[in-house]
């Protein structure tokens, strides 16, 4: 299957919602083409509102639409729809607990050549600090479509972070998707079996995992590649697709910490306050284990080809492998002393 961007999955999902949900409307600040909302706009012109390059007004207008019973999807670049509008999202959307869906396309480094000003790398932290906000980061276009459709019936504010660059499909149409429910993508390498897409690995497989990589967005794909490499080296890495950063799937993450004893998080986002921060906040209070954080190191983005930037910013599978090896050295009864290595 050809690579597809998560924004494309959103566009398909929105179009479908147009048919199934008469109350779904969409807004954009002159970026509906980039956000893949054009098909919806063409099919349902009365239900699409252009508000000009004015993101703050777009969020306020979306709030008004929601007050009057609509389910508005407000679309722009992730940086602008979360950054310029933080105050509007806080008061008009979250404080009023309105059913507004915030669509941030071109998130992370995937906007590439446009450079730092358009590369959103802090929005997980901004969005998840807002009361009542739900934060979803789909790992491929298939999941993005499901997330789009699912969030229309999930009451309250939802932020959906999408990417511009085409990425591999790693989930199937038939895989379940539930907001707030993380998915174990891989487990049990060292037990001699391999499972994918099962929510709860079987006991023997669970017990055999040495470490867990918790990832979201494109980093889930990278985590799976890292796990493949690690398996060859005799390390069993569980991979969790944590598509919902808020609310966090406490059960799945806590089980991973208890069963594998070490965690690496991976996100196309600053290491401050995003997925890694969320997981660390949970585990620090429940079951502290050694952790490492793969992400952008407190810096701005820069211009370049997205693939090239992921390398330059150390967000590749080999960076996850390195982080895993590092965290295993901190793990009590570390593998360095075990016969397996």
């Amino acid at each position, binding site marked *: 299957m050809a690579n597809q961007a998560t924004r494309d999955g959103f566009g398909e999902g929105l179009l479908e919602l147009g048919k199934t949900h008469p109350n779904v*409307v969409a807004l954009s600040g002159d970026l509906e083409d980039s956000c893949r909302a054009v098909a919806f706009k063409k099919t349902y012109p009365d239900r699409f509102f252009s508000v000009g390059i004015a993101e703050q*007004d777009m969020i*306020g207008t979306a*709030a008004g639409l929601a007050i009057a019973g609509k389910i508005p999807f407000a679309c722009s670049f992730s940086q602008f729809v979360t950054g310029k509008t933080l105050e509007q999202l806080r008061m008009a959307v979250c404080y009023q607990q309105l059913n507004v869906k915030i669509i941030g396309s071109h998130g992370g480094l995937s906007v590439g050549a446009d450079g730092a000003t358009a590369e959103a790398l802090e929005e997980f932290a901004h969005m998840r600090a807002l009361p009542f906000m739900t934060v979803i980061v789909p790992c491929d276009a298939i999941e993005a479509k499901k997330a789009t459709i699912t969030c229309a019936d999930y009451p309250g504010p939802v932020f959906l972070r999408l990417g511009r660059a085409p990425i591999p499909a790693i989930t199937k149409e038939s895989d379940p998707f539930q907001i707030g429910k993380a998915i174990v993508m891989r487990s049990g390498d060292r037990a001699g079996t391999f499972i994918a897409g099962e929510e709860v690995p079987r006991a023997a497989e669970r017990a055999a995992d040495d470490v867990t990589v918790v990832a979201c967005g494109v980093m889930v794909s990278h985590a799976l590649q890292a796990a493949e490499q690690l398996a060859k080296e005799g390390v069993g890495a569980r991979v969790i697709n944590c598509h919902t950063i808020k609310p966090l799937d406490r059960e799945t993450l806590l089980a991973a910490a208890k069963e594998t004893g070490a965690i690496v998080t991976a996100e196309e986002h600053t290491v401050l306050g995003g997925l890694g921060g969320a997981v660390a906040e949970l585990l620090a209070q429940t079951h502290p284990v050694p952790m490492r954080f793969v992400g952008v190191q407190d810096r701005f983005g820069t211009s370049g080809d997205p693939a090239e930037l992921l390398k330059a910013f150390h967000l590749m599978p080999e960076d996850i492998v390195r982080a895993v090896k590092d965290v295993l050295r901190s793990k009590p009864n570390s593998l360095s002393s075990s016969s397996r290595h």
Partner: protein
Amino acid sequence: MSPQPSPDLKQLKRVANALRQTILKMIAKAGSGHPGGSLSMVELLVGLYWHKLRHDPKRPDWPGRDLFLLSKGHGCPALYAVLAEQGYFPKDELMTLRRYPTKLQGHPERWSVPGIEIASGSLGQGLSMANGIALADRLDGRTRRIFCLLGDGEIQEGQVWEAAMTAHHHHLDHVCAIVDANQLQQNGPVNIIQDIEPLPEKWRAFGWHAIEIDGHDLAQVVKAYDEAETIKGKPQAIIARTVKGKGVSFMELNPAWHGVAPKPDELERALKELQAAV
């Protein structure tokens, strides 16, 4: 429920005076709040709630009601007093303003009490919400009107002008903005902090039908609301020239009374002045 054809202006004047007294008592009891900007908007609310607005305090969520959105949230003591007087909630709740655990937040929380349609307090956001409601109403065939009250200092916020463009672009003639141009903001006269004039010309340039009135003259207020309703194809802006702190001599046009509660002796003096004015 339906607007009265010819309001008794003398009666409305008495209502406005009584509301001013209530507002000052509430803020004095709270020990903090914004008397100046609450007093300047009293006639604007009286003209709406006692004349123009199609509403029913017994059915605050009646889908056909006209909506009033307070964008200048710091003026909420005036709105709370109006809503209680109209019977939206018991009057004895008024004296809980700003004190934990109250429904009457220092700046409005949506539906904390019936009749509070939106949250405000972070300035500049109400008009965008009014537009969104109007767009949804158009899709759903609702014909209610949406009034949004803004402060003159507030319209220094850029979002207000984004919203002004949106309302014009989408021909939202059910949206009526009311600017309480009380001449002052927290740190001094609006024209010294950042001049916003000429107001009617600005709104007209943004495609709105602008009406300039004395915002304390109830006859003008009522007439402006009636005129605005007749305008088709474009949103309307009522520029209400008002006096911050109106009705209390030592508060009028004195920036010191933007966000300070009257002490007991000051409250007594203020109430005496207002009672003498009836």
